[in-house]
Structure formats: C-alpha cells, structure tokens
C-alpha cells in the first residue's frame, strides 16, 4: 500500500464509527468507511479498498464483494460531478426520460459516460423516494436533491458547476 486514503486523514471519524458496533463486529463499519473513502478519492481504487480491509481486519475480498454489490460505489474513475437522474416509473411519467436525453445532448455524452474534461458523468439511478417532486437528480458527495427538475434548472445547475471550476 503506497498511498493512504483515509487512515490518518479521517482518523477520528473512523474511530467514532467503529465504536458504534460490538468490538468483535467491526465489519459493520464497512459501508460507512467505503463512503468516506469514496468521498476522499471520488471513486474506489483497489488500494483504497485494501486500506479499508486493513482498518477493519477483514480480507480484501470481503470489501470487494460488498463494494461491487451496492450501486453507490464507483469502482472505476468517474467524473467530478456524478449527475444521478432518477429513471424509475413515477419520474418518467413526469418527464425524467426527456430530461435525461436533454442532459445527454447538452453534455455530449451518453448515460454512463464522462465528459472529456472529466467534470460530469451521467449515471442512471433508481427511485430516490422523491416521486411527488420528480423529476429528480442528485449529485455526490453531498447527494443534495434537485427536485421538480426542468431544462432551465438543469442549465443553471450545469452552468454553476462549470463556473466553480
């Protein structure tokens, strides 16, 4: 292990999380720690997962099999801003599908792809429990919800994020 992702940097937080479970059940901290590692690095390279395994005294495979099961964890490099637009039924019935296509055209990439400048990835996501205020998208690592989305709101959001860089 050459780079340390979270061990020192988020030391206090990690200790606090591990203290939430019985001493022999440290593995329960796995999902929270993977979120922290992803927050630090944007995605989860193998050595970041190995570091989590080391912290929790579990085998690396126990981390890989979990990280690959849950949809929030990115196992490959990904855009700085991951635009996760809900594509489930209720959102599609109020225009989510058209907005996803609009976003694809606007950014010049398809769902699942990253823009050439590395800023944006469009990622489809399933129901975000905001069906009454759809269409909806969220952006990690804060996962703030943008509800009642329109083309205008999307334009504004993308402009703001571009300006911030």
């Amino acid at each position, binding site marked *: 292990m050459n780079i340390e992702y979270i061990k020192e940097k988020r030391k206090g937080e990690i200790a606090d999380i591990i203290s939430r479970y019985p001493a022999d059940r440290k593995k*329960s901290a796995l*999902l929270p720690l993977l979120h922290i590692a992803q927050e630090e690095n944007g995605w989860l390279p193998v050595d970041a997962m190995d570091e989590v395994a080391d912290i929790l005294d579990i085998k690396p495979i126990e981390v890989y099999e979990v990280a690959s099961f849950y949809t929030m964890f990115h196992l490959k490099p990904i855009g700085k801003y991951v635009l996760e637009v809900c594509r489930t039924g209720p959102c599609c019935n109020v225009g989510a599908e058209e907005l996803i296509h609009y976003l694809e055209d606007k950014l010049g990439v398809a769902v*699942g792809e990253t823009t050439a400048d590395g800023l944006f990835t469009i990622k489809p996501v*399933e129901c975000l429990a905001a069906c009454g205020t759809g269409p909806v998208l969220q952006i990690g690592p*804060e996962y703030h919800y943008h509800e009642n989305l329109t083309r205008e709101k999307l334009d504004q959001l993308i402009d703001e994020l571009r300006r911030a860089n």
Partner: protein
Amino acid sequence: MGKKILLEHINVPGINTLEVYRKMGGYESVRKAVNEMTPDAIVEEVKKSGLRGRGGAGFPTGMKWSFLDKSTDKPRYLVCNADESEPGTFKDRYLMQRIPHALIEGMITSSYALGARTSYIYVRGEMMPVIRILEKAIKEAYAAGLLGKNILGSSYSLDLYVQPGGGAYICGEETALLESLEGKRGNPRNKPPFPAVWGLYGCPTVVNNVETIADIPWIVNHGGDAYAAIGVGKSTGTKLISACGNINKPGVYEIELGITVEDFIYSDEYCGGIANGRELKAVVAGGSSVPILPKNLILTTANNEKRLMTYESLSDGGFATGTMLGSGGFIVFDEQQCIVRNLWNFSRFYHHESCGQCSPCREGTGWMEKVLHRIEYGHGKMEDIDLLVSIAKNIEGKTICPLGEAAAWPVASAIRHFRAEFEAHVQNPDSCCKKHLHRELVHSH
C-alpha cells in the same frame, strides 16, 4: 380534516429542532415510558392499538414485538428500516427530513419497550441529506439527556446510531438489511429463524419501518385503545400515503384509515383530482410491487362497494379484482399513460435490483424485462403475453424473499386488467408509444 398523529405539527416553524419539537409536546412518551411504565406494559398498549407494520407487509407490530426472544441473555436490538426505496413511496424520507425527532422519540420509547441498549436506524445511502439531519437531531437528543446513560435520570440507557446503506433496493427486506448492517452484501436470509430469534449479530432483533416507530409515542401517550378507535376494523390509526403521478396535488398525506379511495383521489384535501383535466386510468395503490387496478376496480370492489383506504378493502377480491395497501405509495395514471411502457420500466427496476441469489428471480426478472422491452419497442409476438404470465407464475413463491413476488405481481396484474393494450402493441406498435421508439432510455446495469 381527519385525525393527524404524525403530521399534526408538520408546518410549525422550527419543528425540526429539539426545542420546538419539545414545545409541541415532543418526547413526552420517553418521560412517561422510563418513569411510569414497564416495558411489557408498553408492548401491551402497542398490541391493543392494532398498529400494523407501515413498511408494506402490514404485520401487527405488537405481535412482532412479542415474538422477541427473551429467553437468552444476548443483547437485543431494535433496527429501524429507513431504506425507503419502493417506487412511488416517499413518506419516510418526508417525515425524517421534516420531523426527525418524531423518529428518534419513537426509537427511544420502542427500544425501552424491547429492552434494547443499542439501536440503529438504517437509512438508504442515497438519502445522505436525511442522514445528516438525523445525526444532528440525535446529537441534540444526547445533549438533552434523552439518549445515552440514564435517560432523563432513569436507570435506562440507550445508544442510537444512524447507519448508511450503499444503494440497494433489496436492503428494504429486513434480513437483507441486517446482512448489510453487518457489513455484507444485501442477500436476504432464509427464514426461519426470524430476526426476533436470530437477527443482528445472531441476537434477538426487531426491525420496524420509520412510520411504524414514529406512531409509538402517540400510542404510549394516549393508550392503545385510543389509537384503535381511529380507523376501521383491523385497519386502525392513520397512515401516511405518498401520492404521485398524474394528479393535481402530489405529496405526502396522513389519512385516517377508512376514507374512500374516491375521496382520496378527487377531494381537494388530498390529491385534488387528475391533472390537466384528464380521466383516471389506473392506480398502483401501495408501491410499485402491488397489483395495478383499472379505474373501475380501484374506486369500487367487484361487489360494487366503494373501495376504502384500508388493508382489507384494498385487498377485497384477492388478486383477481383487488390489490394491497402496501407501503402507501399511491401512483396515479391518467388516460394517456401507457401500461406497457410503465410495466417495462418497473420490470427493468426489479431486474436491476434482484440480488441474484435465487435463480427464478435473477433469471426471471431479466427475462420479463427483455420480453416487455420487445413488446414496447415493436418486436413483440402474441405468444409473448402468455409467456410473461408464465414467467411471473414461475417466480412467485419460489424465492427466499418477496422481491420475487414484487416483480411478478405487477406483470400478472397488468396483463390481467390491460391485456388488450399489450395485444395492441404487438399488432400495431406505432399506435401508442411511437414518440419513444426513436430513442431508447439506456438501461445499462
């Protein structure tokens, strides 16, 4: 206006803070529980209340609590299921976001009743903003002596933690949730043993939905009989219904169980009628997993009685002509909605969310999605319709957890009630969904 138990103070400014929440009577149930009531007395009140699990299954909460194995000296756990992910359902997120202390108060009082010393709220990972709200509220509760050692000076101590998920619908199934909380893949466990005997870390555990837990303080404060006096028959109390789709007023409504479906859809107090002056076509009444019903059957039962918003009335007629109250995720479709396209979308969802453990679900959900996709995109054959029915039948009841049924029921019911629409798609693909055919929503897994 019906009785409000959960949302009475939803619009009070600052109700998300401990100070205002307490001013409105919040945390009274904790004081009453730890000072005046034995844990068993609380369990008795919950049994009397008739409260049923609000996550979707509708199992009597008091009975679930009474199954908790007290014969061992292992620790007991209360775990709150805040993994709300059933399409059409957004009541728990709303409640946690707006009144986080309602859940925390319920967790403390319920943990006391169950003898738990450590409890967890498992929140789906996508709801990070809600997790931050809950953590802040928990911190406030600790500072006020409502959590931690010797709660309000009593001998009862409790630690309460929020656990983030990682993005997986299946973790709403209680044993998958426990696996996930143990740091594993969310593969549901074989039952029995049930969590009441073998739950978190192999210890006796109760898993309850957010809304269920948030109902407990009112029951402790006012008594089980008072709660049971609200509602109709075995559908006691109030229920949060999250209404969405083609209605004038989408949102979360607290209803007294027993109002008519017609009233819920058309009255201004609730959905406010169908949007854009259109006609009602169909309703999925309890989250995407429950059978879809056409207008005539959602408004009245097969016996021509007005359909009520209760567990019993919505399931009247079984699956031939009825559905389920489920999670209260109420999705309304107007006359312009295409049933085939909506079903394809839901089938894609279940395929995406199948954990892959059981072959009928892993293979069947993918197969149904594929067949529905070809019908929707104009390459279907007539025999595909019965093929779908057959696949659904071969998933149902043949899997470890209910995701199999959740995937099968929408397909079976959509074809039962809207077969002509599927036939029309096969015979004339241009007739309905033409606008979608030129460009596909990418459905990568």
